[in-house]
């Protein structure tokens, strides 16, 4: 029996494949990689209201790896923030649905991103503000693993650890692939968990495609009590769900052709 989050993840994958194929856009592999994280967040973890996207006490979600914007737009449509028919406008002339995440004109998008390394400082600010004002919202930031090359990520990691922002959760989509190769070849992340721990974070390493494990790792208490912020290192597969895209850096760039789209849709169970 498929759970709500699993069926959302399947729908997100199908949307992402269609959007990148028809839009001739990049980053399909990145979007498939984080589809499960987004589905779990938006079906069971985040307290948000599609009828009132700006509800002041909503949980905040910042998609710091903005290049996987197609996946965020898809999960927002699945969650009911807007009609899924809008997704066809992705990458089109005159459309708000840019390749990288933009909040303008798109209900439910908390923050615009696209240049890497911006999300965690902003998320730390949101989490600090919740504590300062005694509000109950939690703040989630989804980072790419390659994004962790950016120094600003570690500036914010240091800040959040120092200020014990327990309401802040950083999820790293750790598929070990970045633009030109693996993360380990490019700039070694390991010992990755130890790095976060040494910055004052509580670290959970989970299978980033296991919805049960993700749900447990993403659930942190609400409230203003200081404590370690949580880092969820989600072990993922770039291009997850489509055999010919998995672990291939090519799909950071290339959109699926019509024929590839059909094969891919079949593989993710959308046919």
């Amino acid at each position, binding site marked *: 029996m498929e759970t709500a989050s699993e069926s959302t993840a399947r729908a997100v994958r199908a949307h992402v494949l269609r959007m990148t194929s028809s839009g001739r856009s990049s980053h399909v592999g990145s979007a498939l990689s984080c589809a499960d994280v987004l589905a779990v967040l938006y079906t069971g973890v985040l307290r948000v209201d599609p009828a009132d996207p700006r509800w002041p006490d909503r949980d905040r979600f910042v998609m710091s790896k903005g290049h996987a914007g197609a996946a965020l737009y898809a999960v927002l449509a699945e969650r009911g923030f807007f009609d899924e028919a809008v997704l066809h406008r992705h990458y089109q002339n005159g459309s708000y649905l840019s390749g990288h995440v933009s909040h303008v004109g798109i209900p439910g998008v908390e923050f615009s991103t*696209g240049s890497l*390394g911006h999300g965690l400082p902003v998320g730390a*600010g949101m989490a600090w503000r919740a504590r300062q004002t005694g509000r109950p919202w939690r703040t989630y930031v989804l980072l790419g693993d390659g994004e962790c090359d950016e120094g*600003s990520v570690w500036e*914010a990691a*240091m800040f959040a650890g120092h200020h014990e922002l327990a309401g802040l959760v950083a999820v790293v989509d750790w598929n070990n692939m970045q633009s030109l190769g693996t993360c380990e070849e490019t700039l070694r992340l390991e010992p990755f968990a130890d790095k976060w721990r040494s910055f004052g974070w509580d670290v959970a390493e989970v299978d980033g495609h296991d919805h049960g494990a993700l749900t447990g790792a993403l659930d942190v208490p609400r409230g203003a009590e200081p404590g370690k912020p949580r880092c969820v290192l989600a072990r993922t597969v770039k291009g997850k769900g489509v055999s010919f895209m998995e672990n291939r850096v090519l799909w950071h760039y290339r959109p699926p052709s019509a024929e590839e789209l059909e094969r891919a849709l079949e593989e993710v169970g959308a046919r």
Partner: protein
Amino acid sequence: MRNRFFAGLLTAALVDPDLVLITADLGFGAVDEFVAARPGQFLNAGVAEQNMAGLAAGIALGGARVFTYSIANFPTLRCLEQIRNDICYHRADVTVVAVGGGLAYGALGMSHHATEDLAVMRALPGMAVAAPGDPAETAAVLDDLLTAGGPAYLRLGKTGEPAVHAAAVHAPRGTSIPLGEGGEVLLCSTGAILDVTCRAAELLGRDGIRADVRSFPWLDPFDTAAIREAATRYAAIATVEEHSIVGGLGSAVAEVLAEAAAAVPLIRIALPAQSSSVVGDQDYLRGAFGLDPESISRRISTHLQERQTRLEAHRGLASQVR
């Protein structure tokens, strides 16, 4: 200017719990009173300006009005993209404050010369840009920033700038402040060099050239109406700024005059578009770059004399043709 800014900020913070001040580990002796009075509204982001700008956006989007503070180029250029994407694109109520605009930290070297900040901040979409000329203008500009909010950039001098205005002034964004009227030349000034500009005007007066000064505490929005009107009333307009010749007050005035097809001559007095490897105190460096009262007045009077000579030569030539 710095002290007037912090006094005004603290006054506002005492009645507004949503006002938050963030520093990137600078402000020794300057932020102490604020921290003591409102510790819950203060953050030290550490020596981490990108983090400071991102934090500011996140906090502001949670309903706060945020001031970020550091010196020279650190709160602007070091985190320029965070200001552009995180603050400006989201219209976050953040005012970026830099102390030590221009050559105020002259002896500290090139890294501390804030000489392109106005140009860069002016170019950002939705960013108000303020460079008050003295403590009274600082208070007036702060009043506006506290009312109308950010995104905004506030360039301050340091401390000890002379008071040009004897009393409080009113300077809502987009306005400029006339100091004198009826002269033949207008000296436009922005930022803490205002008193130097006023002294240059006095020197011109001693040479028989009646010069008015107009202070522009706002570069964006810019008082274009004042420039268009000045173009019809003055024989020449000069701009004076402790900033690169590229993209600051002189550029803003030139844009207005060009689009108005105004015939009035423009004399742009600014720093050359180059880094200074030579150091010295602010007065020394101003003198070295022709931004002292004597150099400014000489530049203007020489320009007017040369123009007069050219006009006379032209008239002479024209009469021969006839």
